């Protein structure tokens, strides 16, 4: 009997802590880069030691390669990616008027491929789509993330923010439970980062491959034993919208290295 008030107090404290979950102040924002070892940072910085560059180079080749029934290459319309794609990835996801919802960079590349090149769509997480996304995003390396303030994106971004705060899975954890409230601490052997999507698609040592933000989000969902959203699901794009807004102003790092 005597234990119960304590239990209630504890519960109240836990709930208060959960309710207090606030955004990370701007001065405390850290890219996952800053939480890595100096060796991994060096690996990311040197373009000749960064295995993500293999995909960027592949993407550069694909950019020039004519494809589909239209027989045009990406370069046929967009020209020199160094100019035309500079800063583009830093502004995605963007609102697509025809679809009536936001679209991410990989989705846009795939859309361009089916509609303009009249080619087979590239499946999510395929090497070719990752390579093109990495190549396009690499053109924004070092530029600040600059989410568009298109009012049509607002409801989707708000839904992303809500998803970010919603506990999911058997472990009943929200993104914010780890990445806002416990960043910098350890989960198993790994440092919990703040979940800023600065370097996607990125080369994760655990994957021994380049992967997209959606793959990473799905990993976390599986980690908390929730059913992950499918690749390309609107919810994942809404989350990306929120994460990009949260990371506004931080420098793009594509292709980043992460443990």
């Amino acid at each position, binding site marked *: 009997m005597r234990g119960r008030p304590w239990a209630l107090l504890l519960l109240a404290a836990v709930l208060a802590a959960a309710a207090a979950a606030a955004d990370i102040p701007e001065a405390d924002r850290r890219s996952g880069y800053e939480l890595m070892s100096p060796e991994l940072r060096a690996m990311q910085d*040197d373009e000749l*030691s960064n*295995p993500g560059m*293999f995909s960027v180079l*592949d993407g550069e080749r694909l950019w020039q390669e004519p494809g589909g029934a239209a027989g045009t290459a990406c370069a046929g319309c967009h020209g020199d990616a160094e100019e035309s794609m500079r800063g583009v990835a830093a502004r995605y996801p963007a609102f697509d008027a025809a679809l009536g919802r936001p679209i991410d960079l990989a989705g846009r590349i795939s859309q361009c491929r089916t509609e303009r090149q009249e080619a087979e769509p590239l499946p999510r997480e395929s090497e070719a789509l990752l390579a093109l996304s990495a190549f396009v995003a690499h053109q924004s390396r070092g530029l600040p993330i600059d989410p568009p303030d298109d009012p049509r994106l607002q409801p989707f971004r708000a839904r992303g923010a809500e998803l970010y705060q919603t506990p999911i899975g058997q472990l009943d954890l929200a993104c914010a439970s780890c990445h806002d409230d416990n960043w910098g601490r350890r989960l198993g052997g790994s440092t919990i980062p703040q979940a800023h999507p600065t370097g996607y698609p990125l080369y994760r040592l655990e994957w021994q*491959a380049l992967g997209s933000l959606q793959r990473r989000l799905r990993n976390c969902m599986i980690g908390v034993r929730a059913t992950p959203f499918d690749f390309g699901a609107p919810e994942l794009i809404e989350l990306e919208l929120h994460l990009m807004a949260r990371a506004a102003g931080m420098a793009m790092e594509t292709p980043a290295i992460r443990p």
Partner: protein
Amino acid sequence: MRTLINVPKTANKGEIVEIRAMIAHPMETGYRTGENGVPIPRRIIHRFTCSFAGREIFAADLFPAMSANPFLAFTTIATQSGSFTFTWTDEDGTTQSAAAEITVT
């Protein structure tokens, strides 16, 4: 074939130079399964060599425990201008190679 080679473009005679070589390769152990439980066939680079002016200056044996996209760094003494040749040999005998020039003054 995709490789990233880092050799200094120029060096002084007698200088110790660092050479870094990376190749895109899955280093697949053969123990993993892919979609629907189908085994992914083993694919391993087992030998790496670097030669300068036709003479082998560095070699390494690689094993399945090494990660994908193996990265090797080593040093040598710059003696004369010339070309480094890098060769990666798979267990099935296929080889891939790359070259890089150095100017020694």
